[in-house]
């Protein structure tokens, strides 16, 4: 398999995994999930470090360094804020069941 084709295969398979993992998510978790996914694309930091490392001119270095700063903010800030949101969800699934039970009785 050529390199290009291998990368294309990875791309297509990743699309299916991406669709699959979030297909059944409750509205309660939409915001943290969006925020978590947002943090994951901060992995562009790896790309930013790579191009900054290879920079030959000051222009390339300047742009690369700016990219490193922005990507770090995206990644680190994203994970921290998602964690802060999720901190408030602890212990909930157990209580959630009780809601459904009492809700049923009320009807």
């Amino acid at each position, binding site marked *: 398999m050529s*390199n290009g084709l291998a*990368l294309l295969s*990875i*791309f297509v398979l*990743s*699309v299916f995994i*991406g*669709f699959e*993992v*979030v297909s*059944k*998510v409750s*509205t*309660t*978790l*939409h*915001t*943290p*999930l*969006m*925020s*978590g*996914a*947002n*943090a*994951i*694309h901060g*992995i*562009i930091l*790896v*790309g*930013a*470090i*790579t191009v*900054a*490392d290879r*920079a030959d001119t000051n*222009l390339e270095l300047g*742009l690369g*360094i*700016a990219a*490193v*700063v*922005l*990507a*770090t*903010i995206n*990644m*680190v*800030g*994203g*994970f921290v*804020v998602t*964690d*802060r*949101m999720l*901190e*408030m*969800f602890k212990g909930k*699934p157990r209580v959630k069941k009780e809601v459904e039970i009492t809700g049923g009785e009320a009807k």
Partner: protein
Amino acid sequence: MNQNLYDVIGLAVAACFIMALKGLSSPKSARRGNLIGAFGAFVATDLVFFAPGMTHHHKWWILGAIAVGVLVGVPAARQIQMTQMPQLVALFNGVGGGAAALVAIVEYLKLGSTASTPVVLATVFTVIVGCISFSGSIVTFLKLQEIMTTRPVIFPGGRFVIAGTLLGVLGTAEWVVHSLGNTSITVMAILALLFGVLFVLPVGGADVPIVISLLNAFTGLTVAASGYVLQATLLIVAGTLVGASGTILTRLMAAAMGRSLFGTLFGAFTAKPMAAAATGEVRTVKSGSPDDVAILLNYAQRVVIVPGFGLAVAQAQHTVRELADLLTSRGVDVAYGIHPVAGRMPGHMNVLLAEASVPYEQLVEMDEINPTFPQTDVVLVVGANDVVNPAAKTTPGCPIYGMPILDVASAGNVIFLKRSMRPGFAGIENELLYDPKTTLLFGDAKDSLTKVVSALKAL
């Protein structure tokens, strides 16, 4: 480091990201999922310094830049109030898009005449979409922060300007692909930034979260495209995961709000500013005192509290809980009716109330609570408006038409705690305010609630 080892660790990091997204889809595992993702990102960032072919010429610059990013990002994420969290996510998404665009620009500057067409195309794609994501996110930030108007910004001939800009972007892209040069890429980046602004301006305030989610997916795709250019498998996997899951999430959000994605994005192209109904007519509302409200609540059998963004802004979560506890102790059945998009984003209100440690069993989702409104004596709407606005059902053509609402009009009495008669985030008049069974209590939500609580204690 040996290339094979590097690739194997990269694969493990990709697996971390898949587990992170999977974990985030269920409340039980969400926090662990996020930590797994953070761990993967941390490993990947360390690993790249040992990647084969690294020159380490600019190591200190890079480490310094990472330190700056951490010093900006962590305090921002820690200190932001939970009410302002959606705009912070928008901002983080924007800087991510900007980073991807910059990476692609640097790569473009390095492309020689030997570069293959797919690589050039992927680079150009990243620059365009990254720039759109960057400037679009900044506009959503300004809208959510209410630095600029939350209403759709529509100007005459707007759609031609937007279409023209898009054609301009594609035209310069053609130029960029055919003649590698600094001028062409600069012009293209500027046009793409402009397009991002124009693309988000016509979107109304209530639809902004959907746009953030969409731009999030866009940024994911740009990361995947950069991965292709840089031949970095990890970036392809991570970026594509975010792109695909972000697309699904955007559709889920649009469905939760009863909007079609297409309508959200392009509705404003055709929308005319709504003619103000019944202008000049002086309409009367019934406003009450905290004592009136306390009496209504005290003699009710069942009370449903509908919290909205106004509650969060006034930091009234604790006071509302105090009120609910007091009512419960007097034998009143109290529940909270949570609209899926109460607050600024789907699930935002659950986060805010959880922060005030409101018992989770009292939070009832819209589909479960709607059938119970006819048996409810009093609905207390605290700083919410759009999510209970019957216009969503009765007025075709209004910006929230079709959005499922909390059916509070079928309850015995409705009490609105509002700061003023100002319409909600979506900017639409609420007919319910003029309904004879509605009582309004004007003032800051926390202030009003405190007065109601003391009036209730005196009864």
